[in-house]
């Protein structure tokens, strides 16, 4: 089990519930979609899983570790095992495309020659060969999304997460991302993609969870009923 949420509740600072009693298990090597309308709480759920926030109640087991009892360094170590494509991509515009992709490797303290080789290979894989030194700010929307994808997978993460891949750039790039994620998934990486585009998620034969106003439903089970 890579991720296990048990009765997770998350409230905003104002006390308003964002996630209510969510339970979820992501198996190792699984490929999942998380669907739900905008504002349903998808991003909050992803932030909980990526340890960007703490749940108000409930337990979150990540890679077999109970995250409630971990210190900051241990939480950081778990985060390094996750690759994430953020909704707003979160590229650092003052860095080149290559340096953006290299961030997870450098954070992990990888030697520079390994950083260079991996970054060049990854950029080539997402169709940006030879563009490592291009300033990120000058890239098109689709190219920026590819840089974000390359950064998410550069360290071969055990859990790969994407937030709204269709909301940023073309559906074509989103398709490319799912294809790339499927290749990574075959190597054993667990994948979770959150999207408000249910039609997009349905195009792929993967298990779906659905979030509705903070309540988590198994979309496939719900559809079967």
């Amino acid at each position, binding site marked *: 089990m890579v991720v296990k949420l048990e009765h997770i509740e998350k409230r905003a600072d104002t006390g308003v519930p964002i996630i209510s009693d969510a339970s979820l298990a992501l198996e190792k090597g699984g490929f999942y979609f998380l669907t739900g309308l905008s504002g349903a709480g998808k991003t909050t759920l992803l932030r909980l899983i*990526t*340890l*960007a*926030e*703490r749940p108000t109640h409930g337990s979150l087991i990540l890679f077999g570790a109970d995250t409630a009892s971990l210190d*900051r*360094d241990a*939480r*950081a*170590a*778990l*985060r*390094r*095992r*996750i690759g*994430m494509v953020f909704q707003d991509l*979160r590229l*650092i515009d*003052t*860095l080149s495309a290559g*340096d953006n992709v*290299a*961030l*997870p490797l*450098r*954070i*992990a*303290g*990888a*030697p*520079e020659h390994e950083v260079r080789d991996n970054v060049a290979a990854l950029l080539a894989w997402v169709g940006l060969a030879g563009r490592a030194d291009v300033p990120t700010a000058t890239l098109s929307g689709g190219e920026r999304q590819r840089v974000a994808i390359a950064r998410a997978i550069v360290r071969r993460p055990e859990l790969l997460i994407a937030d709204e891949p269709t909301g940023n750039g073309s559906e074509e790039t989103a398709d490319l991302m799912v294809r790339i994620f499927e290749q990574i998934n075959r190597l054993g990486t667990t994948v979770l993609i959150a999207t408000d585009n249910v039609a997009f998620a349905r195009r792929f034969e993967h298990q779906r969870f659905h979030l509705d106003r903070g309540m988590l439903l198994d979309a496939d089970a719900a559809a079967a009923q």
Partner: protein
Amino acid sequence: MIGFRLAARRRFALGSDSSGRLLPWVVALLVYAAGLCGVGLIVLNDALRASEHTLAATLTLQVPAETSDARLETVLALLRQTPGIASVHLLEPAETARLLEPWLGSVPLDDLPVPRLIDLRADPNAEPDLAMLRQHLASVVPDSRLDDHRLWPQEMRAAARRIEGVLAAGITIALLLIAAAAVVAARTAVMADRSVSELLHLLGAADFDIAGGLAVRSLGRGLLGGVIGAIAALLTILALGGAGSVVQLPAPIAVSGAADWRVWGILSAFVPAAGLIAMASAWVAVRRRLAAMP
């Protein structure tokens, strides 16, 4: 490994904002002020020690000019027998004339009622009973006057201690302000790069690495500011030392000029101190900011 980590920190892009560029100049100004205060302490200490050395043990007895030789001899005998008086020296009229020369010019003193002066050295280990001595002297020569110069250095010492306190407070305040400036710069850097520091946090960077990058940058800026401030302070001291002979500044300032190793010592000590304070302050400030991220 450390080299790569440093390279990585440099490329983390944190602290590349313009706000931190002011830090070296603020540190330079504060190190300049702290450096001058430090050198001021040395100068003051020197001056105090020099004056204490010459004045501490000295007393002067003035005996009216008309006093007969016999009475003078009695006074000298009395002084020599007084416990706590280490030496007694009756100044010859020629010596007295030399002392008065700056005020009176080289006029013959034979016709003037110049009092006879007796230099006394007190034994530093055995205090003479001056009240008793004055009583005895009054019985032999009623108009004699005993000047105790040791009162002067005591007052001077108290004043000097107060000035030393002010200078030490100046140094402390300057060092605290360096810390405050570094905290503000680091906080501004984290605020300006809030999305970057949060991204690094989300990508799994340990607090140590994120704060380390900014702390190392702050160290560099602190050291740079320290060097600029120390050089400026040294140039000021050289200029003051040069002016010393013209404006008749006290001798110790000339003595404690650039040739004095203590000046070099105190100024060069402020450089790493400024760097380390800036680094430690930035470290603490960033760690506090990061603690707000779960």
